[in-house]
C-alpha cells in the first residue's frame, strides 16, 4: 500500500455532455441564490434550454467524429454507442418536457404553504413561483444521463439517487389538487428509497463476491470464484429489485399509477419518458455486461417478470377511469414489452445487436408519443384544473376535432397500429425475440397488445362517438411551447411510423459495438 497514488485521468471531452448539464444545474442554483425574484424565470429558461441544446450538439459532434467506445473517468462512466444514443434521446425529450414545464399554472406558488390557507392565497396574490423547478429538472436529467452510462455499480447507485431525488420533490409541487400531489411525492419517496436500499445491499453482496464494482470485472469474475455463489445470487436478485422498481416491472409496479396521477403533468411527461429510458439503459447494461455469464439464471426470472408486467399493465388499464392512471398502466405494459428485448439475447453478437437496437428504437418511439400524450392532457381542463376523469373526455372529438384526433393518433401509436412509430418499435423487439428463441414470450406480447388495444380504442370511441356533456371541459388555447410539444411529438410519431429507417439505422449503428467492457 506504500508509494504514490497516481492521479486519475478524466476524459473531459468525452464527458462534456454530462458536465454541461450538471454545470448548468449548479449555475441555476446560484441564480436562485443571487438573482432577484422577478428576473429568475427569465434567466432560468434560456440557461436550461441552452445547456440541453449544447449538450445535444456535443453528442452529435462526437458521433460524427466517430463513436467512442471507452470507459472514461478511470472506468467509471462508459461512453459508448448505446450510452450516447440514450443521452441524445433523453436530451431531446427533456428539452421538450422543459417547454411543457415552462407553461404557466402547473406548479404551486409556495410549496410550504398549507393548501387552502391564508399563506397560500398570499403567495398566489404575490405571484410567487418555485423557479427552483428548472435546476431540479436539470439535476434529474443529469442523473438520467449518468445512470445508463454507469460502468460501476457505485456510480449507478449515485446516479440513481441524483435522478430520483429531484423527481421526488418535483412530484409534490402541483398547483392544483395539492393533497394528491403531496401524497404522490411521499409514496414515490418512501418506495423509491426502499428500493434503492435493496439495490445498494445487492451491490454490497456483489462487491463481496467479486471484490470490485466495475461491471466488466464482475463479468470476468463470474465462474472463477468458487463457493460464494450465494452472495452472487443474492446480489443479482437485489439489484434487479432496484432496477425493476425504476422501470415499473411487476410486482414492483404499484407506485407508478399513483405517482403519475399525482405529479404535475409536465413532470409526469418527463418521468414517463426520461426515467424509463434511463432505467432500461442501466438494466440492460448491468445484466448484459456484469451478469451476462449468469443469463441461464436470470433469464427465467425476467421471463416471468415480463409476462406478469405485460398482463398486469394491459389488464388493469382496462378498469381505469382516470386518463393519467390509464397512461401509467400503459407505461407499465410498455415496460413489459421492452423486457422482452432484454431477454432476447443469444450467443451470437448479431443477435444481441438486433435486440439492443430494437430496445433503443422502442425507447425513442415510446418517449415521443408519451410526452405528446401528456401534453394533450395538460390542455383539456375543467374549472378545477385538468380534467382527468375519462367521462369528462366524452365527445371531445366533436368539440375540438384536431386535439382529439392527435390524441387518438398517440393512442394508436401506443397500441402499435401500423403507420405509427409504436408498430415498428414492437416489430423490432418481437423480431429480435423470435430469432432469439423466445417465441412464447412474443405470443404473450401479442396477446397483451391486443388487450391493450381494447382500452386505447375505448378512449377513442368515447371521444368521437359519444355526446359531449353540457358542462364538459374546455380545451385551452395552447401556449406556443405546448403547441410545439404536441406538434413535435405527433411529427415524430408519424415520421418514425412511415419512414423509420434512418432512426433504425442510427439505433443499429449505436448497438453495433454493444457495451464497452
Amino acid at each position: 500500500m506504500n508509494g504514490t497514488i497516481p492521479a486519475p485521468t478524466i476524459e473531459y471531452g468525452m464527458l462534456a455532455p454530462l458536465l454541461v448539464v450538471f454545470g448548468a444545474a449548479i449555475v441555476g442554483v446560484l441564480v436562485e441564490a443571487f438573482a432577484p425574484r422577478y428576473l429568475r424565470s427569465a434567466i432560468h429558461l434560456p440557461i436550461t434550454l441552452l445547456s440541453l441544446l449544447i449538450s445535444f450538439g456535443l453528442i452529435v459532434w462526437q458521433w460524427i467524429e466517430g463513436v467512442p467506445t471507452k470507459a472514461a473517468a478511470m472506468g467509471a462512466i462508459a461512453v459508448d454507442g448505446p450510452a450516447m444514443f440514450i443521452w441524445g434521446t433523453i436530451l431531446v425529450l427533456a428539452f421538450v418536457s422543459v417547454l411543457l414545464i415552462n407553461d404557466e399554472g402547473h406548479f404551486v406558488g409556495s410549496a410550504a404553504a398549507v393548501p387552502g390557507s391564508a399563506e397560500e392565497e398570499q403567495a398566489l396574490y404575490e405571484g410567487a413561483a418555485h423557479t427552483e423547478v428548472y435546476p431540479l429538472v436539470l439535476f434529474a436529467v443529469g442523473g438520467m444521463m449518468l445512470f445508463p452510462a454507469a460502468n460501476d455499480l457505485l456510480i449507478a447507485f449515485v446516479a440513481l439517487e441524483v435522478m430520483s431525488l429531484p423527481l421526488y420533490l418535483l412530484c409534490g409541487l402541483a398547483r392544483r389538487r395539492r393533497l394528491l400531489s403531496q401524497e404522490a411525492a411521499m409514496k414515490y419517496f418512501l418506495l423509491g428509497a426502499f428500493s434503492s436500499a435493496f439495490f445498494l445491499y445487492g451491490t454490497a453482496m456483489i462487491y463481496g463476491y467479486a471484490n470490485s464494482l466495475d461491471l466488466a470485472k464482475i463479468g470476468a469474475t463470474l465462474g472463477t470464484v468458487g463457493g460464494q455463489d450465494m452472495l452472487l445470487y443474492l446480489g443479482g436478485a437485489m439489484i434487479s429489485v432496484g432496477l425493476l422498481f425504476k422501470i415499473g416491472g411487476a410486482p414492483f409496479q404499484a407506485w407508478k399509477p399513483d405517482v403519475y396521477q399525482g405529479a404535475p403533468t409536465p413532470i409526469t411527461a418527463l418521468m414517463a419518458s426520461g426515467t424509463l429510458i434511463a432505467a432500461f439503459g442501466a438494466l440492460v447494461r448491468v445484466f448484459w455486461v456484469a451478469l451476462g455469464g449468469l443469463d441461464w439464471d436470470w433469464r427465467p426470472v425476467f421471463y416471468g417478470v415480463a409476462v406478469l408486467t405485460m398482463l398486469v399493465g394491459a389488464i388493469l388499464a382496462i378498469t381505469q377511469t382516470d386518463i393519467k392512471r390509464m397512461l401509467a398502466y400503459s407505461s407499465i405494459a410498455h415496460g413489459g414489452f421492452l423486457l422482452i428485448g432484454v431477454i432476447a439475447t443469444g450467443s451470437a453478437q448479431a443477435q444481441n445487436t438486433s435486440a439492443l437496437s430494437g430496445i433503443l428504437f422502442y425507447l425513442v418511439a415510446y418517449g415521443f408519443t408519451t410526452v405528446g400524450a401528456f401534453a394533450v392532457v395538460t390542455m383539456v381542463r375543467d374549472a378545477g384544473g385538468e380534467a382527468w376523469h375519462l367521462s369528462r373526455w366524452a365527445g371531445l372529438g366533436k368539440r375540438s376535432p384536431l386535439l382529439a384526433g392527435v390524441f387518438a393518433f398517440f393512442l394508436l401509436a401506443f397500441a402499435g397500429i401500423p403507420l405509427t412509430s409504436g408498430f415498428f418499435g414492437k416489430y423490432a423487439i418481437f423480431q429480435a425475440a423470435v430469432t432469439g428463441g423466445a417465441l412464447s414470450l412474443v405470443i404473450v406480447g401479442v396477446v397483451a397488445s391486443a388487450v391493450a388495444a381494447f382500452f386505447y380504442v375505448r378512449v377513442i370511441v368515447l371521444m368521437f362517438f359519444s355526446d359531449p356533456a353540457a358542462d364538459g371541459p374546455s380545451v385551452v388555447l395552447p401556449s406556443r411551447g405546448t403547441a410545439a410539444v404536441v406538434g413535435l411529438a405527433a411529427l415524430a410519431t408519424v415520421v418514425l411510423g412511415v419512414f423509420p429507417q434512418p432512426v433504425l439505422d442510427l439505433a443499429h449503428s449505436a448497438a453495433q459495438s454493444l457495451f464497452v467492457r
Partner: protein
Amino acid sequence: MTTHYLVLSALLFAIGGVGVLVRRNAIVVFMCVELMLNACNLAFVTFARQNGSLDGQVIAFFVMIVAAAEVVIGLAIIVTIFRTRRSASVDDASLLKH
C-alpha cells in the same frame, strides 16, 4: 471472523425492511430505510476487510453522503404532508387509489 459482522448487517437490513413494511408513521418508515442503508455500509466495510481492498470503505462514505441528501428531501416531503394533514401516518394518505 468477519462472518459475524455480515450476520449483523443482514439482521439490521432485515429489521429495517420489516420496519418499512409494518410501521405506520412516515418518519419511522424513513428511519427504517436509513437503517437499511447503514446495514449496507456495514456489509461494504466488512467485505473490504475480508477482501483486503479499500474500495468498500470509500463506498461507505459515498453512501453516507447520499443518505444525508435523502434525509433532506425526505424530511421536506414528510413535513409538508404533516402540515397539510396534521398526521404523518402513511395510512391516512390514501386519496390515490384504483
